C-alpha cells in the first residue's frame, strides 16, 4: 500500500512533463480538427431545410440553433428491422436519399448499421437518443426525436439576425457532409440556395 503510494508520487522531470502534457493538450484539439476536416473533405453531401433560432453559448459565442424538418423528428412508422433489446441510450441509423426538390429525404430508420447501399443513398447515425419501449407493442409509434451534432451554427457576434429573418420565410437550407461512419458535419448554410457562409476545411 505504502509502496504503491510512493510509486504514484514519483515526480516526473519537468521537461518530460512538458513533452507529455504538450502532446495531449496539442494533440487532442489537433486530432479533433483533422477528424472534422476529413468529413468536410470526403463526406457525402445532402441538403436539409431548417428553422433556426438565436441563443448564446458562454464558451463559444453566438449561434443559431437549427432544427431540421426532415430528420429532427422522424416518423416512427419508418422504423425497419430489429428493435433495441433494452431501454437505454441508442444510436439509430437513418437511410437518406435526395428527394425531387433536391432536399434530403428519410427512407428508413434502423437500429443496426444499414448494409447494401443503393446508389444515391447516404447513411447517417444519430446521437444517443432515449429509447423506451412503449408497452408491449412491437411497432414504434409516434415521432422519434433525434439529434446529430449539427443543431448549432456559430456566427460572428451579432450576425445571427440575417439567418433568423430568413428563417421566418422558411428559406434557410443547410448542406451537410456525412462520413462513411455516419458522422455529420455542416458544410454550408444557405438562404434561397445561395451559400451564406462556406465552411473552409480549417
Amino acid at each position, binding site marked *: *500500500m*505504502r509502496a504503491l*503510494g510512493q510509486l*504514484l*508520487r514519483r*515526480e*516526473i522531470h*519537468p*521537461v*518530460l*512533463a*512538458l513533452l*507529455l*502534457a*504538450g502532446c*495531449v*493538450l*496539442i494533440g*487532442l*484539439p489537433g486530432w*479533433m*480538427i483533422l477528424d*472534422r476536416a476529413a468529413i*468536410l473533405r470526403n463526406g457525402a453531401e445532402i441538403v436539409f431545410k431548417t428553422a433556426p433560432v438565436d441563443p448564446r*453559448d*458562454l*464558451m*463559444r*459565442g*453566438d*449561434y443559431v*440553433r437549427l432544427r431540421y424538418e426532415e430528420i429532427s423528428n422522424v416518423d416512427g412508422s419508418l422504423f425497419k428491422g430489429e428493435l433495441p433489446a*433494452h*431501454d*437505454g*441510450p441508442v444510436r439509430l441509423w437513418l437511410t437518406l436519399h435526395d428527394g425531387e426538390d433536391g432536399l434530403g429525404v428519410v427512407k428508413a430508420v434502423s437500429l443496426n448499421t444499414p448494409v447494401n447501399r443503393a446508389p444515391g443513398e447516404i447513411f447517417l447515425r444519430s*446521437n444517443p437518443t*432515449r*429509447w*423506451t419501449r412503449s408497452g408491449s407493442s412491437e411497432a414504434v409509434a409516434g415521432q422519434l426525436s433525434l*439529434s*446529430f*451534432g*449539427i*443543431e*448549432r*451554427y*456559430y*456566427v*460572428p*457576434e451579432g450576425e445571427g439576425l440575417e439567418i433568423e429573418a430568413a428563417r421566418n420565410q422558411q428559406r434557410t437550407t443547410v448542406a451537410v457532409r456525412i462520413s462513411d461512419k455516419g458522422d455529420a*458535419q*455542416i458544410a454550408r448554410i444557405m438562404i434561397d440556395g445561395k451559400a451564406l457562409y462556406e*465552411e*473552409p476545411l*480549417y
Partner: protein
Amino acid sequence: MLRRYLSREIEEWIRGGLLDAGQGAALLRDHDRRHTGLNLSSVLAVLAAVLFGAAVIALVAANWELIARPLRVAMILVFIIGGLSGATFAVLRNAHWIAEALLVFTLLCFGAGVALVGQMYHLSGDEAAFMLSWTIGALVVSVTYSSPMAAISAGLLALGYLFTVSDGLGIFSSWHGPDLAGYIVALVVTAAVGVAAWRSRSVMAGHLGAVMLLCAVVWIAEEATELNPSYLLAAIGAVAFAAGSLMPLQSDAPFSRHGTLSAYGAVLLLGGLGMVQADAEITSLPGIMAFAALVLGTSVGVLVVAGGENRLIRRFAYFAFSCETIYIVGETLGSLLGSAGFLFFGGLVLAAMAYAMMRLEKRFKKEGVQT
C-alpha cells in the same frame, strides 16, 4: 486563519508562563518558514492567470472574423506551448507558484482551444464530450507536473462532466436506463482525480475526488438499480464511520482515527438518514417517533464515539440532533397544542438539549484532561 489562532494561543501560553517570550517568537518563525504556501503574491499570480485565460476564452467566444480561423488555432496552440514551457522553466527554477499560475492559464487556453474546434465545426450536443476532453487535459497536466492547482481544476471539471453526462445525476430526469460505458468512464475519471490529488498532495482535490465518487455512486444507484440513493448514502456513511472510528487501525493505515474518513461517514450517515426520513413519508405517530429515535440515537452515538476528537463531527452531530428534535417537536406537539404552547414547549426542549450538550461537552473535557 491557523496562524492567527496559533499566535493567539502562543500569546496565551507566554502570559501563563508556559513559554518564554523568545521561544514563542521562535515557534512562530518556524511555522512561517514551513508554511509559505499561500502568500499574497502567489494568490495574485493565480488570479492574474485566471483573468488572462478568461480573456482568451472571451476572444474565442466573440468569433471575431478579423482573425482568420487558422490564426486563432495557432494563437491558442502558442499559448498552450508557451504556458507549459514557462511552467517547466519555473519548476526547474523552483518557482512553484509561478508554475501553478502558468498551468492554470494553460488549462484555460486548452479549454478555449477545444471550444474553438467546436465553434469552427459547429458541433452541438457535445457538452459531455467537451467537458471530458477538458478534464482529461487537466488530469494530464496535474499528473505530469504534480500540480495541486491543476488537480483542483481537474476535480471541478470532472464534477462538471459528471453532472452534464448524467443529466443532474439522473435525479431530475425522468429517464432511467443503464449506460454501462458512461459509468465506467465516470469511475475511471474519479480514480484519475484521486491519483492527481495524491500526486500533488492537494487536500482540496482529494475532497473533490471524494465528492465525485459519491456523486457517481448516487448516479449509478439512481439509474441502474432499484436502490434508493438515500439508503445507499446512509449505508456508505455507516461503513465509513465504522472503518474510521471503530476498527482497530494498523500503524501504516492511510487515514487517522476519527479523522477525515470518520467525518465523511458521520455526515453521510446522518444526512442519508435525514433524506430517508424526508423520502419515506411515514404518517403514523409511532413510526415517526421510532425513526426520530433512530436518528437521535445515531447522532448521540456518533458524538460519543468521535465527537471528542473531531470538531467537525461534533458540530455536525449537534446540528443533526437539533434538526431532528425540532422536527419531532413540530410533528407531535404542534397538532396537540396551540402555537403559544408549541413555542413554549419548543423553548423547553431546546433548553433541555442545551443542558444535555453541556454535560456531554464537560465529559469530553474531563476525558481530555485525563489522557
